[in-house]
């Protein structure tokens, strides 16, 4: 039995079908939650945001034109809401400083332990990237979005998507190097 497509679910949701909404929520809410959580870094706030995201889907389903994947559309909504939340509290936009802290703490006990485990070090540095860089790395690696889809979600040209990912990786490499981990980079 083939699962109902996301597009078909959106069509039913546009007709007020709450069961379709349940199915769509079950299918996507964990990934949307993780995407938002990586941006806002607050579980309670992330839960509130995914409720808002799916409520927007419920309200706007009849306007979905199918020009992009449903998941891409929802991630774009989620991103907008997450950034709106952050803008309401500017003191939370300290990600670049957080990244610098990671580099500066190369010799702390936690990082010293991480040196023994390259995987753990990569994850730690991924956490320490700026929100902008975390976002694009998550969209490409975890959410499996193409260049075109990332461009649509983030609202930037495709070439900028490529260069932003390039520099996100470069930053990650620098952080790993600062943490004493070998990393190939020209």
């Amino acid at each position, binding site marked *: 039995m083939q*699962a*109902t497509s996301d597009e078909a679910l959106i069509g039913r949701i546009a*007709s*007020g*079908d*709450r*069961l*379709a*909404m*349940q*199915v769509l*929520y*079950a*299918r996507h*809410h*964990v990934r949307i*939650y*993780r995407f938002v*959580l*990586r941006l806002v870094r607050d*579980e309670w706030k*992330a*839960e*509130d945001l*995914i*409720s808002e995201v799916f*409520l927007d889907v*419920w*309200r706007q389903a*009849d306007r979905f034109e199918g020009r992009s994947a449903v998941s891409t559309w929802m991630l774009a909504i989620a991103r907008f809401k997450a950034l709106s939340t952050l803008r309401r509290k500017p003191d939370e*936009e300290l990600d*670049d400083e957080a990244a610098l802290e990671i580099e500066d703490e190369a010799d702390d006990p936690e990082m010293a332990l991480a040196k023994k485990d390259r*995987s753990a070090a*990569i994850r730690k540095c*991924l956490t320490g990237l*700026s*929100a902008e860089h975390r976002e694009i*790395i*998550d969209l*490409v*690696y*975890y959410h*499996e979005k*193409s*260049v075109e*889809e990332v461009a649509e979600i983030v609202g930037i040209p495709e*070439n900028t998507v*490529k*260069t*932003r*990912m*390039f*520099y*996100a*990786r470069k930053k*990650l490499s620098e952080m790993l190097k600062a943490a004493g981990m070998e*990393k*190939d*980079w*020209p």
Partner: protein
Amino acid sequence: MNTVDHQLSERQEIEALLPWHAAGTLSQRDAERVEQALAGDGELARQFEAVRDELQETIHLNESLGAPSARAAQKLFAAIEAEGARAPRRRSFDLVGRIAGFLSGFAPRTLAYAAAAGALAILVQGAVLTEWAVKDQAGGSAPELASKSSSEGPAIMVRFAAQATAAEITSFLGTYKADLVAGPRPGNFYQLSVSGLKSPDEISAVVARMQAESRIVEFVAARE
């Protein structure tokens, strides 16, 4: 959040595509372009290995973030329920919406973990509930949930536990020969009608048995 987006050189252009190549989201044309470059460039191949490490750890990191609690779903579907009462978007087959509204009150966490399998289960359960709960529509009026007269049995108010699955609730209702009469009401309460109960002692006994099933219901009380 300032990022300077520079122009990339030709080699950097290929290198910039490596993350999408690793994720399998490049077009065939670009994938072939990258493959050709990888075949003749050892340094680029080493970069690709680094990209694969990053991809693996990004997935690992995200998977470790867990899932939202049932609160998010409760908040969402309560808002939808509230909007549904005033929105003119319901169609004639809104019965499905009523069933979905019913389901929305008690199974979000289960749905979260069940994902696709859960979706299938709910569709099946929805069909079962529909068949079970819909009255004969011979009169041609809009479908509605079965609302046996409260005179057929005492009304029992319940609130289903967040972790209860649709299957468990279906079984629960069948065990007690209970009909869903109304709900959700404020506080996510549902009204059940249980036929065959007459004396206060019988009612109390059934309520007590229901209360013991704490995995499925977190609140049960007979309504006078």
